[in-house]
């Protein structure tokens, strides 16, 4: 027990004894984990951002002049049946007069003596679907419905957003794999270098009869501690970044969207840093004390 406690305390003490090396290693781990963390948070919030963008898609379907309120409702019901559409709101001819008055301050009925405004429907799209919204196809289907006069939309922008989302989702596994692979390499080599810098110490320990396990254990504790210390700083930094991003979103773009950080990300990062640091230390010492 004395021996185990000694080896553990050596791991802690080594971080202090080799302050410069430990600081470099912890800082490298920190930067690497921040990049991984940002990527994980982005992945987590992409869907949320998209849902927000989809909630802002605005499509207005204008009917022919002779469409009655009853017909307007039945056309809206037909539109709602189209795949990808979440809801419809009918604006009948009278509602249109009110909206006109609200926006332009004029009563068009008393001005012209008749109501020239057509009934229309505002269409809202599905927000939660993982797939790209096939916007052009939806518009085409709406246009084919009888008594639909015109469809007004921001098709160019919506298509751009949906295309970008589709591209992102297609490349996400590859990019995340690549980032995690690079993170593993950086952490592994950082820990390895910090062990190599103490090659003489390891040789001296061997000369006084220390077993391989006795030499390895403090390094492994040290590696684990460096991993944990760096993640202790990473999580608050990530929370700070997300809070900053939320503040900018709220004050600059005036949106009510809030980015979230899943606490599980922290567990993932500790696991990633801890396991790789332990592995890096172990492999580095093993290669020195063959």
């Amino acid at each position, binding site marked *: 027990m004395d021996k185990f406690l000694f080896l553990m305390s050596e791991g802690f003490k080594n971080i202090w004894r080799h302050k410069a090396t430990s600081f470099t290693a912890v800082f490298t781990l920190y930067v690497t984990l921040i990049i991984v963390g940002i990527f994980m948070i982005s992945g987590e919030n992409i869907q949320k951002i998209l849902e927000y963008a989809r909630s802002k898609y605005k499509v207005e379907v204008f009917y022919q002049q002779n469409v009655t309120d009853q017909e307007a409702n039945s056309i809206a019901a037909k539109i709602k049946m189209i795949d990808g559409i979440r809801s419809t709101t009918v604006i009948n001819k009278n509602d249109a007069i009110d909206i006109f008055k609200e926006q332009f301050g004029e009563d068009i009925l008393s001005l012209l003596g008749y109501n020239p405004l057509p009934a229309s429907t505002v269409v809202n799209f599905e927000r939660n679907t993982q797939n790209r919204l096939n916007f052009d196809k939806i518009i085409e289907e709406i246009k084919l419905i009888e008594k639909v006069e015109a469809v007004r939309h921001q098709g160019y922008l919506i298509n751009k957003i949906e295309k970008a989302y589709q591209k992102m989702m297609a490349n996400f596994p590859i990019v995340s794999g690549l980032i995690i692979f690079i993170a593993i390499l950086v952490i592994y080599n950082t820990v390895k270098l910090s062990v190599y810098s103490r090659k003489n110490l390891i040789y001296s320990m061997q000369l006084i009869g220390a*077993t391989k396990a*006795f030499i390895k254990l403090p390094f492994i504790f040290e590696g684990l501690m460096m991993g944990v210390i760096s993640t202790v700083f990473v999580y608050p930094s990530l929370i700070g970044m997300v809070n900053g991003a939320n503040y900018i979103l709220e004050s600059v773009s005036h949106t009510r969207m809030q980015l979230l950080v899943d606490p599980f990300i922290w567990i993932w990062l500790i696991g990633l840093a801890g396991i790789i640091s332990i592995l890096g230390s172990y492999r580095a010492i093993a290669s020195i004390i063959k």
Partner: protein
Amino acid sequence: MIEFQNVSYKHQNEVGVNDLSFTIQENEFAFLIGPTGSGKTTLMRLMYFDLLPQTGMVTVGDFSSKKMKSKKIAFARRDIGMVFQDYHLLEDRNLFDNIALPLHVLGFPASEIIQRVDECIDLVQLSGKEKHYPYQLSGGEQQRACLARAIVKDPSLLIADEPTGNLDPVSAFELVKLLKDIHETGTTILMASHNYNLIKGRGYRIMELQDGHLRGGS
């Protein structure tokens, strides 16, 4: 205690040792002399199994090079104290921690470690310097610290490879005197040196190495 049987070890670009056969008895004090490059360090490295002979067999206590596996080397070294010309003290810890390390390796309880280390520090006359780091000690003090680290575990064999090589004559003389005191407590000692004046006339066995061959005292 130590037996070399037709031991040869050749380095890539150096002589090493060639067909050495000799024994050192328990509680013996022997000197190994020879010029630089004569094979003294190779011979000593063979003794603590840092090198394994290419031919022949080395036996130290209960351990033989024939049956030696890498896992066993650490255990073979536990009964050997080693002193080196360049000290091999751990620069990142103080004198007390350097001397205590072999006892931690052997799993001694904390109370006994403190007692033994204090005794050894007294013996090598470094009391009051427990908190000093190696770079804060003179060459002679570092070598005495190295000696304290070697004897703290009470080994039956002490190997000293050119321990006086970096010391001034007074410090060198004091170190040999310390080794003599340690030998009187029953420790077998082999000390390598190229300084014949330091060891002559002491009445101990002298072995001479020349180009990897033993010339006398086998």
